[in-house]
Every structure is written in structure tokens, then in C-alpha cells.
């Protein structure tokens, strides 16, 4: 187990270097960001040259990348154009997005799995059909539509919540954005767990458990659910990474100043330190979430062993 984890962690190093370089290269390929700093006016050549020099933009790409990686290894992520260190931006943005992701994941787990189990056990009956229909509808509505509609209904029409989230972004204000963010994934979780449950409820071990005379509750939670959760856990694990980086739309709608906001701003202003820095952290989150999922397999299914 320990050796497996170490091997996996070592495998992350090339992935990390490769992905940061790709992102660095892509932001670089967008062109010279200094030209956009002067608005409608033509950039003053002397000032523009000084700014480029300060940001190492006058060096060739490989030198810029080398300089940037050197900085990162010493824990220095560079500065955004407005003079803020990127680490400061991260310290502000990541906790907010993490809270939002937490709310969304909790919704997915609680409602998604519950609905999935209910419809899986009642396969083919009206409850199952209703849930299937509902998930179909939810999956087909894009996030920005559900976001704006729910925001208008809850925020303006009924005045139950504030339409936008304050900069501190406490949990209570993140409930609605969290639901919006979770909706699509929630539908997938429901469907995944439904299929899995429906399949496994005819498995031999379930029949054995029932034949042993175990109470139905114990059969479902201990035997059926635990074995059926493996695909669901895989999905939720990868979803953590996707939700953290992909909350751009939701964060814009509800004015949440999280990772999505900073990434959007960084891309718009072609600020490579911001974009690469944030994506680097996201890559790490994604890799770790995947590792955690793989380890969870062993917990859920004793037949799986890592040596």
C-alpha cells in the first residue's frame, strides 16, 4: 500500500511538469499581453518595453518557463498585473471555491445517492421513471440557464436569498450556487447509482445475504450499497477537480470571487503567472483526488489489493 502511494506520487511529477508547460505555452501563444494594458491608446514603446522587461516577457519562451519554474519551486508564484502576488490571490480564492465545491459535493452525495438507491430498488416502477425523467431534464439544462433562473426566482422574485455572494462567501450564501453547481453532476450520480444498484440487487451475494435472513436494511447498506458505490465514487472523485476548476460559469453568475473568477480575469488579461499558478494547483488537486479514489476502491471492495 505504502509503496503504491509513493509510486503514484512519483508519477505525478512528469504530469505536473508537462501540464504546467502546456498551459504556459498556451497562454504565451495568445500573444503579448502588454499591448492590451493601454486601452484605446497606442502603447508608449519605452514604458511597454520596461513592463515587458519586468515581467520577463522579452526573453524567449524556454527561458521564461525556466524562470517561472525556478520561482515556483521556491514557493514564489509571481505577481498579477495589478501588483498583487499570485499567492495572495490564491489564498483569497481557493478557500471560497473549496467551500462552494464542498456544498456541491455534499448535495451530490446526499441527494444523488439517495435518489439513486430509491429508484434502483424500485426499478421499473413509477418512482424510478419519475426520477429518470427528472434527471433527463436537469442534464439537458445548461448551468447558466438554471443559474440565472434560480437566481432570479430566489433572489429577486421571492427575495429569499441575496442574488450575489458577498466577498467573504460564508456557507449559507453558497447554498444556492452550490445547488446550481451540483445539479448536473447530481443527475449523473443518481443515474450511476441507480444502474449500479439495480444490477447488483440480483447478484449472488445479495441473494445469499437475504437467504441468511439479514434485515433488509442491513442487506441494502452493508452488502448492496457498498459494492455498488465504486463507479459512483470514481465519478465524484474526478468531479471534485472538475467542480473546482469548472465553476467559472456559476462563480460569474453569483459573483463569487473564487478560482473561476481569477482564472477568467487572468485569461482575459493574458496574465500567465495567474493562469499557470491557479491551473498548477488545480492539476495537483485533480491528481490527489484521483489517488484518493483509487485508494477508496480498496476500502469499498476488499477484493482489490494494492501491493
Amino acid at each position: 500500500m505504502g509503496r503504491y502511494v509513493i509510486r503514484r506520487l512519483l508519477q505525478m511529477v512528469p504530469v505536473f511538469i508537462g501540464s504546467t508547460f502546456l498551459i504556459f505555452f498556451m497562454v504565451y501563444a495568445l500573444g503579448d499581453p502588454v499591448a492590451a494594458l493601454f486601452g484605446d491608446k497606442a502603447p508608449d514603446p519605452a514604458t511597454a518595453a520596461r513592463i515587458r522587461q519586468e515581467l520577463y516577457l522579452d526573453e524567449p519562451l524556454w527561458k521564461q518557463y525556466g524562470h517561472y519554474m525556478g520561482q515556483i519551486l521556491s514557493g514564489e508564484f509571481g505577481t498579477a498585473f495589478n501588483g498583487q502576488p499570485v499567492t495572495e490571490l490564491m489564498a483569497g480564492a481557493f478557500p471560497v471555491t473549496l467551500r462552494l465545491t464542498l456544498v456541491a459535493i455534499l448535495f451530490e452525495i446526499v441527494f444523488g445517492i439517495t435518489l439513486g438507491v430509491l429508484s434502483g430498488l424500485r426499478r421499473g416502477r413509477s418512482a424510478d421513471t419519475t426520477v429518470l425523467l427528472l434527471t433527463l431534464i436537469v442534464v439537458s439544462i445548461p448551468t447558466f440557464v438554471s443559474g440565472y433562473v434560480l437566481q432570479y426566482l430566489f433572489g429577486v422574485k421571492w427575495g429569499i436569498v441575496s442574488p450575489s455572494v458577498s466577498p467573504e462567501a460564508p456557507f449559507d450564501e453558497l447554498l444556492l450556487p452550490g445547488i446550481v453547481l451540483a445539479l448536473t453532476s447530481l443527475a449523473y450520480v443518481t443515474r450511476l447509482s441507480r444502474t449500479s444498484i439495480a444490477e447488483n440487487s440480483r447478484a449472488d451475494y445479495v441473494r445469499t445475504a437475504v437467504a441468511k435472513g439479514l434485515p433488509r436494511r442491513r442487506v441494502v447498506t452493508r452488502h448492496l450499497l457498498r459494492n455498488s458505490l465504486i463507479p459512483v465514487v470514481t465519478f465524484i472523485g474526478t468531479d471534485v477537480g472538475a467542480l473546482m476548476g469548472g465553476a467559472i460559469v456559476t462563480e460569474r453568475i453569483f459573483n463569487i470571487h473564487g478560482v473561476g473568477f481569477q482564472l477568467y480575469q487572468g485569461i482575459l488579461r493574458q496574465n500567465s503567472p495567474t493562469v499557470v499558478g491557479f491551473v498548477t494547483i488545480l492539476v495537483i488537486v485533480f491528481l490527489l483526488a484521483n489517488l484518493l479514489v483509487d485508494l477508496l476502491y480498496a476500502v469499498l471492495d476488499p477484493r482489490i489489493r494494492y501491493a
Partner: protein
Amino acid sequence: MRGATRARWAVCALSAVLAAAAAGCGGGGGGSGVVRASWGDPQNQLEPANTNEVQGGKVLAMIFRGLKRYDPRSGAAENMLADKIETSDQQNFTITLKDGWTFSNGEKVTSKSFVDAWNYAALVDNKQKNASFFEYVDGYDKVHPASGRATAKTLSGLAVKDDKTFTVRLRTKFSTWPDTLGYAAYAPLPRAFFDDHAAWLRKPVGNGPYTIDSYAKGSAMKLTRWDGYPGDDKARNSGVELRVYTDNNTAYTDLQAGNLDLVDDIPSAQLKNAKTDLGDRYINQPAGIIQTLVFPMYDPNWSKSGMEKVRRGLSMAINRQQITDQIYQKTRTPATDWTSPALGDQGGYKAGLCGDACTFDAASAKKLIQDGGGLPGGRITLTSNVDTGSHRVWMDAVCNSINSALGNDKACIVNPVGTFADFRNQISEQRLSNPFRSGWQMDYPLIQNFLQPLYYTDASSNYGKFSDPQFDKLVDEANAEGSQAAANAKFHDAEKILAREMPAIPLWYQNGSAGYSDRVSDVTLNPFSVPVYEQIKVG
């Protein structure tokens, strides 16, 4: 609303129990008398000479006052800190300051506050984006050489006489130069700016009607009225809270929900509803912005003789009225010259200088283009960045307008560019061989600002490289005139040359739009489309 508040508290308490995260519960709201306004994250640090966009400009307009100030209504430059600005030759100016002005930290505003600030702004080492505003001052080429190191630290054209007087020597004659001094880049700076720069940037200190209470970069800024402010434009509210919004749709929703008092950028999708939603709390007035289509005059295909007919013909083929009505819901006005109505008569605006060339007339357009030898290569391409401002939409409309005027489906095509930076690079490297968009937002409400930087030979923002000796001569003469009226007349003559040569097609004047809640009143936008915060009354 009672029920709503209670529900919010209940949710708040619930989450506090669940997650033990009581932080921020309740918060928000702002005290009574505070204006809650939408904001965007300023692109640059908030130094006066480094702020060239409207978001940072909002803050500077609240915490700084310069020698002159532009009247929020008429745009006319009026003395603020300056007692008088005198010249006998339009080139050497003596500036005398009024008594009694201090910074909010108690330091007196002296002539040194100005000279130090200007020297800081002009020095190339300080990388100030508005440095070029000081190019008219003698000695600018020493502190800001086009390449290499600065050979002087200070502008030789500036000299402090005493605490209240300083002199400025310009490179050339520039009669209306004093009227440019209302721009934020010319603001005075306190010693604190130079002594502890980092601390000043975290919480800027100025001499305007507001002081900064707290500044959370990227999310919010709270400003309070400065009770010791010596000017007569004291704040009529107790403070302003600026909130950063990433999406102006959300700001608009917050305004509807009563969480926000002022939105100064109505999303284009909501323009149709804004009038019915807000009634007379919707503002739509001219701002000092014009959009044009610039011809690449550096390309002989466009500059050879005879092509002026094609350029004029293309201008006449555009149905401006239809586009501004249908796409922009009248938040743009068809342009009839190369300046802006926001200048007012005094600033030099005169409608209709473009004449027939800016009036839609499909038949004449087609004839003119044929007379001129047709479109180069049989067709044209319009280029613009499309990341903001619904540029893609109007480009399509302009192309349709041209195509139908010429009776040719393929006469005009659109070349959208993904980012502004990329677009800007293509322009500055002269890679475009067809007309491209150019927007211009005025720095100060003078006709000079709309003409000289854009169409004078080799001027800084003359992207199309238009050059006409007669135009240059008229601009020089205008700058040497003693009175503003005489200068304006010369500039109008210069505009007539533009109408003949058509180096850029004037498309439309851009308006500033804003909406406000019923909690506030007396909301106006100044000619730079920045809300006049100090005049807003709450309650």
C-alpha cells in the same frame, strides 16, 4: 422583506451549526447614507499616472482633485486647485495655487506636490502608463527616451517658484494645454506616496472629497466622506461602497433585488428591459467615446489616389441609424463627425461636419465605390476584437449593410479576433490590410484630444498612418490660437479634411448608461461616463 430577512437568519444559524462557520453571517448591507455601487477590478495599481481605465478612474475621481476639474454636466474645464494659469505665448505657463488645500492626511498641497508627482509620472523607470501625457512638457525626451536609459530624473520644463507657484515650459505652443489638466494623471501626490510607496498603494491617500476606509483588492472598496474637505463639491452622502462584479448581469440582478444602489454598466441583454424595469432611474447619455473603422493608409491599395472615393462610398453604405437602434437600443448615436457630443460647444463639438459622407445612401455609395475603382481585391474584411462590447454583432450588421448596398453577398466579411491584446498586436505590427475597428475614449473634453493623437502625422495612436500636410498645418495653427473659439474653428476646418479624405469612418458615439435604486437620487454620469458619486443623495 421581513420574512425574507428572517429566512436568511434561519439559514445562517443553520449553517453555523452545521459547519461552525459563523464568519460573515449577517454582514453586508452597509450603513445608512452609504451608496452601494458596482465596480470592476482595476487593471493596474491605483497610481494616478498609471490608471487609464474607467474602474480605477472611479476611485481617482473620488479621492483626487487636480488643478482643473471638468464640470460633470457641461464638461467645461474649471479651476479647482488652480487659482490662475497664465501665459503670454501659449508655451510658458505660470500656475498659481489656491490657499487652504490639504491632503486628507493633513499635509498641505503645494506646488511641489504637483511637480514631484509629474516628474514621477514622466520618468521611464516608474513605468507609468500615462507617462505620454507629459510629452508636451520640455525635457520629456530626457526622462522618457524612446529607448535606453533616462538621462535626467526630472522634467527640465517644470520649476517650483514658491509654495504656491510653479512654471511649466512646453515643447511647442499648445494654447488649450491648461484645459487638459483636469485629467487624473495630473493629480498632486502627498509625500507619503514617495516615502512609503507600498503602504500608499495598499490604501491610497489623496485630496478629494472621499477618503479610503478599506480596500480589499479584487473584491471591494469602502470610502467615507472626508469632513475636512476644503472644496465646494463636498460629498452629499456619508460614503461609497464599491463592489467588484465579474458579470454585469449579476450587478443588474442585485440592483433589482435592492442589494445595490448604482449600476453604471447595463448589460446589453438587459437594455430592452431597463427602461421598463427602472423607469426614470435609467440613465442613457452621451459619453466621450467614439467608434470608428480605420483604413490602413500604410497599405498602398487603400491610400493610392482615387481610393478616397471608395472610402467615402463605404462610409455611405453603412446604415448607422438602423444598427444603433436595433443592436444598441439607442445607447449609441450615429456619428456625424470624428469627435463626441460630450465635448459640448465649448469643447469644440459641431454636428454634421462629416456631411453627406456619413449619411446612408446606398445608390451613391455603390456609384462612388465603382468610380474609385472598386474594392481592393474585390472585397473587404472588417477586423475587431470580439471579447467585449458586442463587436461581433455590429460588424456583421455593417457587412450586411455594405453587401446589400453593393448588391454583392461577398463584398464584406468579418474577421473576429479573440482577445483585445491579440487585436492590438496585429494593429501595431501593421499586419492588417483592411479596415479595422478603433475606439477612442477622450482623456479631456477638448476637440484636440479627438483629432491630434489619431490623425496627425505619426501621432501616437494614428494606427492607420494617415498623413496629410494640410491637416497637420491646421492642427498646429489651432494649438497656437489664443482663444478656444478660434482654436475650435481651426479644428473644424481640419475635420473637413477628414471628411474629404475619410481615413477613418465615424460609426457612432457611445453613450454611458446607468441604473439606480429608489434609495438614492441625483445620480448623474460625467462626460467620461463615470458616476458623479459626491452628488448622490441617499434616502
